[in-house]
């Protein structure tokens, strides 16, 4: 059955089983956890119950202690909440025992609540009883006190009336009884309070006893009273005591009940808590049991799930892997080419279908291999079955069979054409594919190789016959094709050699190399005869040409030969006549040149040759020589003119003409000489100007120096007088400081004296203080006496009182004595205050005098310091005076130096003036030269006399400038005849 299931189905079954088991485990876990959760909740509730009950109890206790109604409310609310939750928990619980326990706690809680309510109610009753107790006790006491007062009044009455002693004693005993009654009642109250506070029964018993005593006493008293009003009062007292007793009994009863309720509450609470704890413990135990069972179940289920999963996995995987392995093996064999096999798997699932498909594939492979073998054996008529449109292998095998058929038919066609001589026949390769095409192309190539060389040989022979000599055949051929190629190349060489010799001879003739001949030995056969004929023709033309060449050569070397006398024919005679004519013309030219040269040697530069005697270019030669002479003479003339001008002081003269070569050099040398001279004179002129102005400046500065020196001398004088004043002041200063010192000494003595006085005063103050202290002691004694006197007076008053009427006068005396004591005390106190004041004043005085003394001492110190400073000042003043003397000496020396400087500056001033005069003379000398206006403008410096004041320089400057130029031009004409100048 498993074999026929689909794979998906198998997988589904396996995983489904696993999922179901996992689900079961999860569900079990969830159930267990839920159960645990409810247990935890129950345990929580039990805890809560304990806590809640404790809180309720605490609230109840708070009420008992503070009696606050809020606590009652709180306790009630807590109890109500508790009961509600218990009901809820009860519904949740399933176990009968637990249910009972819970109900028990609920009941305990309601019991507790009941007791508490009762307690509260009792408390209110108790309060009222207490109030009643207080009221009735007070009423009884009030009545007793009224009774007492009444009895006292009556006693007084009786004493006043002077009734007999029995009646009075009777009255007194009644009063005593009433007093006892009051104290009994008070005692009862005290015990009652003790009972309320301490809750001790013995106090209650004491109260009872006292109340009974009081009742008895009251009754006795009543019986003794005669007055109806008094009896009625006693009745009221009795009534009040009874009321008090009733209230007290009630109080005690309620109190006991209350205690019982308190005990009940405590019991209930403790039982309740025990139950709750028990419940909690039960829940905890159950929870632990549930937990362990749940863990066991889960582990068992998990193990079962794992085992089932393993089994399912094994079975399903085996059902799939075994057939798949078989099919894989078959596929591997098929891949290796084994087609003779079968697959033995017969299943209906996907693996079975795979096996069927493999079986079909193996059958198809077997059929295809059979067909391939047929084609290989050469049987092209076999048919290939194409199984489907996608059977690529089948189609390819069919195509292969047809390609081989085509190749066979083309081969047969070519072989038939070659046999018929149709060498150009070829097969079309496009009909074939791949390597089949390469076979066909190879056959076509073979045919081309045989036919090519035959065609080339035919073409060459045709060209040579037409005179077009082709290049040598360079292509390489094999076998017989190479022999044909060599013969053709030899024929081409012979023709080429003949042509090149003809061309060489023609070229030599054209170049004038008439001795050149071709080498006939290089040629063979008829080619040699042609070359020999050409060489003979050339020999006949060359003889006359050689004679003409020799004559011309001589003429060109200056050896003029004799005229040619030999006779020649034809054109060769014309050549001879022309040569003779040329010799005559050259001879004439030579004689003219010799004539000119002789004239030049003798300085006759005007001599020239006659041009007209010569023809053509010879005439031009003579004319050139004449012009050359002209060119040489002109620059020499101009140079002599310029030198003459220079000699005339005109340094502006220059050679103006344009010359070349050596003439140009002469011009340059001359011009630069003039230029240098011009420059030198201009510089001299400038220097002279500068010297002149410098001399002026020196003169001026010297004057200023002289003035400065005199000023300095006067200020020195002033300084000296100031110094003298200063010296006087310093002396005065010293005198003053001496006076100050004396004064300071006086001050110091006065301060010392003051300090001593102060010390004495301080001593006096101390004495005052001591005296005051002693006085204070005396006052204390007086106080003591006053106090004792007061006591005596009081004692006297007491005694006077004891003495009764007899002591009345004594009492007055005692009071007077007491008053005196009081006055003595007051006076002593006043004195004490005054003494204290004076002591404090003395203290203050002492302090102040101490401070004054301090200040005086500080003053003495300061005065000493002042004295020191003054003596220092005195010393400093003396030093200052010495310093001033030295300064004075220095001033005198300075004065001498200044005087000397003034004298020196005057001397230098006169020297500067002299220098200015000399520079003016020099200027006059230089002014004789005529210079370029440009140079004179830049370098000219005004020349003036040293006596001209500085203020007058500017206005005269321009006048002098123009004047100097004109005087310079005059000077040149004036000194033209001066022999010195000429030399210069």
């Amino acid at each position, binding site marked *: 059955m498993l074999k026929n299931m689909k794979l998906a189905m198998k997988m589904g079954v396996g995983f489904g089983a696993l999922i179901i088991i996992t689900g079961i485990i999860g569900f079990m876990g969830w159930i267990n956890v839920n159960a645990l959760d409810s247990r935890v909740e129950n345990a929580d509730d039990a805890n809560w119950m304990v806590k809640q009950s404790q809180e309720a109890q605490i609230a109840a206790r708070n009420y008992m202690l503070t009696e606050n109604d809020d606590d009652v409310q709180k306790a009630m609310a807590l109890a109500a909440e508790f009961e509600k939750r218990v009901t809820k928990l009860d519904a949740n619980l399933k176990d009968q025992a637990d249910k009972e326990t819970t109900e028990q706690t609920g009941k305990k809680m309601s019991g507790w609540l009941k007791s508490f309510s009762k307690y509260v109610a009792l408390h209110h009753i108790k309060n009222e009883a207490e109030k009643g107790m*207080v009221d009735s006790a007070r009423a009884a006491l009030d009545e007793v006190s009224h009774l*007492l007062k009444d009895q006292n009044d009556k006693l007084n009455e009786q004493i006043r009336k002077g009734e007999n002693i029995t009646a009075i004693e009777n009255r007194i005993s009644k*009063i*005593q009884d009433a*007093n006892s009654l009051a*104290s009994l009642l*008070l005692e009862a109250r*005290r015990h009652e309070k003790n009972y309320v506070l301490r809750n001790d029964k013995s106090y209650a018993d004491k109260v009872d006893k006292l109340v009974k005593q009081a009742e008895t006493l009251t009754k006795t008293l009543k019986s003794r009273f005669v007055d109806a009003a008094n009896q009625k009062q006693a009745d009221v007292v009795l009534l009040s005591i009874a009321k008090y007793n009733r209230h007290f009994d009630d109080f005690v009863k309620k109190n006991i009940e209350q205690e019982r309720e308190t005990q009940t509450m405590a019991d209930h609470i403790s039982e309740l808590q025990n139950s709750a704890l028990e419940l909690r413990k039960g829940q905890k135990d159950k929870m632990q049991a549930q937990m362990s069972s749940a863990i066991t179940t889960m582990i068992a289920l998990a193990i079962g799930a794992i085992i089932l999963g393993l089994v399912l996995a094994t079975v399903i995987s085996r059902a799939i892997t075994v057939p798949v392995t078989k099919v894989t093996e078959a596929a591997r064999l098929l891949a290796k080419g084994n087609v003779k096999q079968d697959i033995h798997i017969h299943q209906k699932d996907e693996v079975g279908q795979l096996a069927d498909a493999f079986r079909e594939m193996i059958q198809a492979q077997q059929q295809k291999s059979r067909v391939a073998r047929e084609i290989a054996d050469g049987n092209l008529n076999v048919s290939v079955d194409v199984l489907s449109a996608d059977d690529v292998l089948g189609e390819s095998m069919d195509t292969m069979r047809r390609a081989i058929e085509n190749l066979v038919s083309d081969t047969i066609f070519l072989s038939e054409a070659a046999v018929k001589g149709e060498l150009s026949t070829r097969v079309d390769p496009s009909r074939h594919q791949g390597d089949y095409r390469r076979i066909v192309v190879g056959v076509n190539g073979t045919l081309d190789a045989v036919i090519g060389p035959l065609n080339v040989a035919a073409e060459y022979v045709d060209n040579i016959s037409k005179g077009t000599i082709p290049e040598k055949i360079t292509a390489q051929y094999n076998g017989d094709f190479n022999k044909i190629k060599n013969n053709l190349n030899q024929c081409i060489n012979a023709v080429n050699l003949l042509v090149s010799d003809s061309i060489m001879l023609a070229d030599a003739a054209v170049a004038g190399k008439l001795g050149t001949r071709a080498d006939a030995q290089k040629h063979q056969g008829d080619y040699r005869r042609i070359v020999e004929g050409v060489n003979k023709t050339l020999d006949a033309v060359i003889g006359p040409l050689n004679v003409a060449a020799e004559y011309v050569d001589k003429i060109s070397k200056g050896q003029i030969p004799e005229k040619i006398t030999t006779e020649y024919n034809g054109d060769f005679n014309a050549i001879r006549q022309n040569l003779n004519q040329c010799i005559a013309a050259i001879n004439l030219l030579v004689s003219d040149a010799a004539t000119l040269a002789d004239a030049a040697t003798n300085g006759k530069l005007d001599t020239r040759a006659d041009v007209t005697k010569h023809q053509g270019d010879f005439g031009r030669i003579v004319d050139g020589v004449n012009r050359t002479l002209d060119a040489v003479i002109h620059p020499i003339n101009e140079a002599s003119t310029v030198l003459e001008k220079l000699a005339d002081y005109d340094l502006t003269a220059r050679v103006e003409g344009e010359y070349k070569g050596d003439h140009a050099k002469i011009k340059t040398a001359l011009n630069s000489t003039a230029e240098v001279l011009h420059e030198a004179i201009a510089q001299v002129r400038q220097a002279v100007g500068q010297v002149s102005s410098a001399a002026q400046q020196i003169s001026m500065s010297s004057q200023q120096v002289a003035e400065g020196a005199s000023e300095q001398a006067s200020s020195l004088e002033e300084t000296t007088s100031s110094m003298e004043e200063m010296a006087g002041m310093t002396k005065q200063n010293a005198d003053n400081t001496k006076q100050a010192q004396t004064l300071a000494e006086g001050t110091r003595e006065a301060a010392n004296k003051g300090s001593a006085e102060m010390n004495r005063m301080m001593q006096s103050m101390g004495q005052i203080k001591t005296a005051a202290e002693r006085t204070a002691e005396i006052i204390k004694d007086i*106080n*003591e006496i006053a*106090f*004792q006197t007061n*006591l005596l007076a*009081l*004692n006297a*008053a*007491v005694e006077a*009182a*004891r003495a*009764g*009427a007899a002591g*009345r006068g004594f*009492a*007055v005396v005692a*009071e007077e004595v*007491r*008053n005196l004591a*009081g006055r003595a005390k007051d006076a002593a106190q006043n004195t004490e205050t005054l003494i204290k004041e004076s002591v404090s004043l003395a203290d203050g005085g002492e302090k102040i005098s101490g401070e004054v003394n301090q200040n005086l001492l500080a003053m003495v110190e300061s005065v000493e310091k002042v004295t020191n400073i003054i003596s220092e000042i005195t010393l400093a003043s003396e030093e200052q005076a010495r310093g001033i003397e030295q300064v004075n000496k220095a001033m005198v020396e300075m004065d001498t130096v200044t005087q000397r400087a003034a004298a020196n500056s005057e001397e230098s001033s006169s020297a500067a003036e002299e220098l200015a005069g000399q520079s003016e003379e020099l200027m006059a000398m230089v002014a004789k030269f005529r210079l370029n206006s440009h140079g004179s403008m830049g370098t000219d410096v005004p020349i003036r006399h040293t006596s001209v004041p500085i203020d007058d320089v500017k206005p005269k400057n321009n006048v002098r400038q123009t004047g100097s130029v004109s005087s310079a031009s005059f000077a040149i004409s004036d000194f033209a005849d001066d022999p010195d100048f000429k030399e210069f």
Partner: protein
Amino acid sequence: MESQMEPQENISSKNETVALANKFITFKLADEEYGFEILRVREIIGLMDITRVPQTDPAVKGVINLRGKVNPVVDLRLVFGMSETVPTDQTVIVIVQLDLANQQKNMGVLVDRVLEVLNVDSADIEPPPDMGDFESTSRDFIMGVAKVGKRVVFLLDIARVLSRDSEPIES
């Protein structure tokens, strides 16, 4: 001091019986004035050396030797629950004469300052104040409150003060 003149007037204006019954010696404890019947006073003396007695109540300061007689001395401040008396030059001992069980006994009381012999009209004496629920048994020794001018003097039953645990002797 301010009421120095009053007793003279009182003495001269009232009759003898009243004067006898209403004469009080007054003194100070802390800031309050107290007084008790003058007939209870034996003597007033200045502070003198007090010899301590072992195993006695803390309020008992000890005993003094007064002219050959040994008298116990009680610090009234301690009796009234105040702080212990600090002796000053004003501190005095009042010797009180007690009639206990028909037998006379003298006892010294230490007070801060003795004031005067005061005459009080019975109309100026009021019963002890009613304190309601705050009432305490320990206040039984106050006989009444005297109004003197603007001041208030607590009149003590000195016998009761000095013998608190015994039953009262007289009304």
